[in-house]
């Protein structure tokens, strides 16, 4: 019975994906892309990957959607009407489509021909996760078995933020106000919902060790809270000066590096957490990572958003 559901879901995902590539108007494509993110989250749930589904819903549909909507709005103010049509060359368009279809069939063939009994690395992971005290295998893989990858990913996120800062010349990033007072409804709405979002972010970090959750998902919710504040015309608090912003952006990476290097002093290798303190270390890392990811996402949005009504285009 759920097969019917899955078929409809797959059809809708492909339909929306094609729709978001259509050249008929930037705005339509952006809205399609946001909806695509939401449907993909459902797809991940059906594939048995609730962690990825959480991340997709929070980042793919949430933060990325907001950044794209902002960009689309900015573009429409400057060049009304569909702007992509002029730039699509006729003969080139079918080639990527053909390449995608070929890749799809190759992958489908490979998946279908996998031996039915092969569990792959799953039993090893599950056993290892039990030992480490982190019951959520995904978190164990991300921060323990493949911690090095995550370390580099966080570094990439930080570099991206720095790059966006340099493009926009935005040293005083959180001091910019994107909007004035947003009206009584939106203002009260934000005041009520933001603490709720913060609680959910904390909840996701805490249960990330045993249930779907973790630093990325929590960081995305935190980023979403910050973006909501910015959109609703809340100026940053007095204590969030330049230094605080820079600290919050970098602490995640620094803590991660520190914890990665720590075993070297105990005679182990990089990222080889000692068994007794493993869970504590990972939780500490996750907390700081959440903060940094949240700060990065908010900064990415504020830095790339065009200024509000108080000035021209910077």
């Amino acid at each position, binding site marked *: 019975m759920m097969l019917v*559901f899955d078929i409809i879901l797959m059809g809708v995902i492909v339909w929306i994906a094609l729709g978001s590539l259509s050249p008929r108007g930037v705005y*339509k494509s952006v809205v399609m892309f946001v909806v695509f993110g*939401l449907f993909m989250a459902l797809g991940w749930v059906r594939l048995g990957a609730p962690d990825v589904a959480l991340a997709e819903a*929070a980042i793919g549909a949430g933060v990325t959607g907001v950044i794209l909507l902002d960009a689309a709005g*900015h573009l429409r103010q400057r060049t009304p009407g569909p702007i992509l049509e002029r730039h699509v060359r006729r003969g080139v368009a079918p080639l990527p489509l053909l390449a995608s279809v070929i890749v799809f069939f190759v992958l489908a063939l490979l998946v279908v021909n996998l031996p039915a009994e092969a569990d792959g690395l799953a039993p090893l992971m599950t056993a290892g996760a039990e030992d480490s005290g982190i019951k959520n295998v995904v978190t164990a893989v991300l921060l323990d078995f493949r911690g090095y990858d995550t370390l580099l990913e966080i570094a990439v996120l930080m570099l991206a933020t720095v790059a966006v800062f340099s493009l926009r010349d935005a040293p005083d990033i959180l001091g910019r106000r994107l909007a004035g007072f947003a009206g009584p409804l939106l203002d009260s709405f934000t005041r009520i919902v933001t603490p*709720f979002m913060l609680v*959910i972010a904390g*909840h996701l970090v805490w249960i990330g060790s045993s249930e779907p959750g973790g630093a990325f998902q929590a960081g995305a919710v935190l980023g979403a809270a910050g973006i909501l504040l910015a*959109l609703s015309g809340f100026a940053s608090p007095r204590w969030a000066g330049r230094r605080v912003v820079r600290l919050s952006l970098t602490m995640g990476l620094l803590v991660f590096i520190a914890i990665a290097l720590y075993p070297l002093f105990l005679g182990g290798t990089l990222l080889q957490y000692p068994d007794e303190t493993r869970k504590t270390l990972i939780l500490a890392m996750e907390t700081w990572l959440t903060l940094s990811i949240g700060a990065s996402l908010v900064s990415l949005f504020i830095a790339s958003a065009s200024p509000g009504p108080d000035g021209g285009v910077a």
Partner: protein
Amino acid sequence: MKITLEILAIALIASVALGIYRIERGPTAADRMLAPMLFGTTGTALTLLLAEIEGIHSLYDMALVFALLGALTTVAFVKRAWGPDE
């Protein structure tokens, strides 16, 4: 009993697929934004349903995230993306 849940899930996703039509057509930008708004709610409902069908109760957290992010997307649309109408 479970069959009721599954049929409901199919009904929900079919009805959302209908809503996508509005993205294509809706004359104003607001009309196009209505589909993500609908999908935020229906997505939350589907997440809760799938949590029940598959027994993964941790998906209730994802339903919360869906709800919050739907609101954020709408706020972003109203404040930032809604330029002169097309």
